[in-house]
């Protein structure tokens, strides 16, 4: 049996950029039972509050796992992430997971990773776990974060910022040539994902981590479905990683 919500103890919760926090959680309890803490692309449902407002837990991807410490990288968007950002070392936080399918780490060939904004989170862990040759393309609005760590792990790192403050000025999709890769992993805002898929169509397979509003996070409520060639699929259980050939975008 999997364990449902467990308490994580906050090791650190650091602002690393405007609105972006890095959260390190110590997991003792359930790892004692030798359960897997998760692979790249998997996520946890986080609750940093006991009350019923906010009501639902928040899905956040695994950005790293080292020993018993899970790292999350999150952007403060609304009230849930706001509350989490206020937690300090020693505070506890409830979490359910690991959830979802994760990226397929066994695929062969040269990999291009494309991230937009906070979509970088699962791709950081991915870049650590892949044995393939990897080029990493990361786009930011203005401030750049976490690239120093990624740089050491990959063949080449490309940075773009919308305001041109660092790297290429513009979108990250303007930087990369799909012909150079055997597969692409991507995560970021929907318009970016769509653009990556468009650029890669008929050239190279794309695997994208999708977002959706979630309730249960475990595949039971059918609240997070997206349209795919196989019918309505659950982002939380059948995803969040989908092949671009499966996903049917509404427009």
């Amino acid at each position, binding site marked *: 049996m999997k364990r449902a919500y467990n308490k994580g103890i906050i090791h650190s919760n650091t602002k690393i950029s405007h609105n972006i926090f890095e959260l390190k959680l110590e997991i003792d309890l359930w790892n004692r039972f030798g359960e897997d803490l998760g692979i790249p692309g998997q996520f946890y449902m986080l609750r940093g509050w006991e009350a019923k407002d906010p009501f639902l837990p928040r899905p956040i991807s695994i950005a790293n796992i080292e020993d018993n410490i899970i790292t999350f990288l999150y952007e403060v968007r609304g009230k849930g992430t706001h509350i989490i950002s206020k937690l300090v070392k020693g505070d506890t936080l409830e979490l359910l997971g690991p959830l979802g399918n994760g990226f397929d780490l066994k695929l062969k060939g040269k990999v291009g990773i494309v991230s937009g904004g906070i979509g970088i989170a699962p791709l950081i862990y991915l870049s650590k776990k892949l044995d393939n040759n990897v080029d990493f393309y990361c786009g930011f609005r203005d401030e750049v974060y976490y690239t120093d760590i990624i740089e050491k792990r990959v063949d080449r790192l490309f940075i773009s910022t919308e305001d041109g403050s660092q790297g290429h000025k513009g979108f990250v999709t303007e930087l990369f040539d799909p012909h150079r890769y055997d597969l692409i992993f991507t995560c970021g805002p929907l318009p970016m994902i769509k653009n990556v898929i468009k650029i890669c169509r008929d050239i190279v397979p794309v695997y994208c981590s999708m977002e959706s509003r979630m309730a249960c996070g475990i595949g039971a409520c*059918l609240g997070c479905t997206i349209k795919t060639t196989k019918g309505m699929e659950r982002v939380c259980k059948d995803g969040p990683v989908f092949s671009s050939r499966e996903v049917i975008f509404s427009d």
Partner: protein
Amino acid sequence: MINTKVNICGVELKNPVIAASGTFGFGREYAEYFPLSKLGGISSKGLTLNRKEGNKGIRIYETTGGLLNSIGLQNPGIDEFISNQLPFMKKQDTIVLANVGGGTIEEYVTSIERLNKTNIDMIELNISCPNVKEGGMAFGIRSKDAYEIVSEVRKTCKKPLIVKLSPNAENIVHMAETCVKAGADGLSLVNTFSGMAIDIYSKSPVFENTIAGLSGPCIKPIALRMVYEVSKAVDVPIIGIGGIMDYKDAIEFIMAGAWAIQVGSGNFINPTITLDIIEGIETFMVNQRIKSLEEIRGIIWRENI
């Protein structure tokens, strides 16, 4: 010794806690977290005769103390349910309710005919889903529409028949009385409240269907009132639903008159919340020296208890 058993329409539940339709799938996902045999029962995802894809666009939207949903009865259809889900569910040593929706009386009746031939324990007739035209809510608003469908289904149905009421009914007590007259063996209430949300930046409704269904602890005080009013008015077993998040909520519904309760949105907060509720009820009974749930069922209004 305490005893948490309840007998509803001849079916014995080991405890009064049932997982609510649409929040628990067919149990498979939760079975990864706890043995489903702990539950009093499970109500299946709402089923229609033919498979349904459900609604497009956003399906879940959080509100204060709850959520709006517009799933639109995505389900594999009755036949697929009977061949691929029901056997799994029946193996779990818990009572299984088939939650049945539909667009027309014929559709409902055909679904029931097929379920008659299975080992399903009970039918929960959903005349209250606000999210699809075919969800049956049209039948759940006016008593006379409900009378028509329930009495037709009753003629066919060989299983204990629970009718699930909509809180959007014009008059919940009259609706309950009508369904009982039409042949319901029991009633469950409430389904979700019709609600909505607007995205003020795109200046349009959040949901493609505009209206969605509200559930969660936000609705509890209203749901409890409805269960209280209905319990007083009719003599069949009542299953209380709406915002139950802990054993205290469950006990409130039982004291209002419910025989059993269902937990819906609470499962999203914690997949093992039903276990906490079952345990909490037991502890409460021990501490309060309550031997059986009958002792407190409807205690706030029943005379001579």
